[in-house]
């Protein structure tokens, strides 16, 4: 076997070995368990003309039904998407007050157990809640404000 052929065999052998190492090493490190959650912060009030922000299309149907039909004007204050890692408190930036969300665990492969806390604009905790909800379903927190207005926080995870 000529020197050139021997070196090309060696090169190919190394390439094969490298590829094998890459393939075995390319196995993605086990990703942490996460849930992708979408958060809508809304304000609600009663006005002359009913109006719902177009961005709230995904919850619009629900807002037109009781108990939300108390109000007829809904405005989107903020919208965010969060990847919640298991047992990691994730802050949610709000226009009014603040909130956190924590993925406690995933239950039966299709449900998420979430802990949500909300504080009002003065930093006072209004609610701390843990709910187990199916992926795709909603949890909506409503904080009644003075003047018959409402501060709403809607979460859905999958």
């Amino acid at each position, binding site marked *: 076997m000529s020197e050139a*052929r021997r070196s090309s*065999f060696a090169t190919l052998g190394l390439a094969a070995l490298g590829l094998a190492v890459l*393939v075995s090493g390319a196995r993605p490190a086990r990703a942490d368990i996460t849930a992708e959650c979408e958060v809508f912060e809304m304000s609600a009030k009663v006005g002359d003309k009913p109006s719902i922000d177009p961005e709230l299309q995904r919850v619009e149907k629900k807002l037109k039904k009781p108990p939300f039909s108390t109000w007829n004007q809904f405005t989107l204050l903020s919208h965010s998407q969060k990847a919640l890692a298991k047992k990691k408190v994730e802050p949610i930036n709000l226009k009014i007050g603040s909130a956190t969300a924590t993925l406690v665990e995933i239950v039966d492969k299709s449900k998420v157990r979430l802990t949500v806390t909300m504080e009002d604009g003065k930093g006072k905790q209004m609610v701390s809640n843990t*709910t187990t909800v199916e992926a795709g379903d909603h949890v909506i927190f409503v904080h009644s404000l003075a003047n018959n207005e409402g501060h709403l926080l809607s979460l859905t995870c999958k």
Partner: protein
Amino acid sequence: MTRSPVQADAELMEHADGERDDAELAERLNRDPAARTKIAALHEVGELVRGHLELASDDVPDAKFAAMWRRIDGQLDAPRGAWPRVVAWFDRYRSHVITGAVSAGAVAALALVLRPAAPDTGLAGRAGGAIDVRPAALRASPEIDALDTPGGTGTVINLDDEDGHTAVIWVSPADTVENL
């Protein structure tokens, strides 16, 4: 002049190969039937060898011949530039490259099959971030595991519609409970 049998046979072979053709040898062939038989036998053996070689050459795949011709052409007209050289290299070592690729594939397949199983997360069949979203009709109602509403009152309402369930957690500050 007398010749040894070996010398005479050598002359006959040269004649059979077309390398010797003198009058003396022709005359000898005319009067020696054994020599003619030897010449005929030599021709027959030659035909057999030629036929065998032709058959063997037919067995060589056309692709191999084509590659050989390309190589010959390439050597006659040496490639200029980097890309033609790369192509020429691959052409020249095609079988090695294929062998290497197949080996790499086999090793990669083995590595995939033999790699250690992912640690048990307690969530069979799920990659991180992928939660099964079941059809709305099959979803269970939300379950409130804990609810704390400091300084206020919490009311839980469960709404169902064709899009699924909605857990409404209505928090009313203590001073506005009467408004609900």
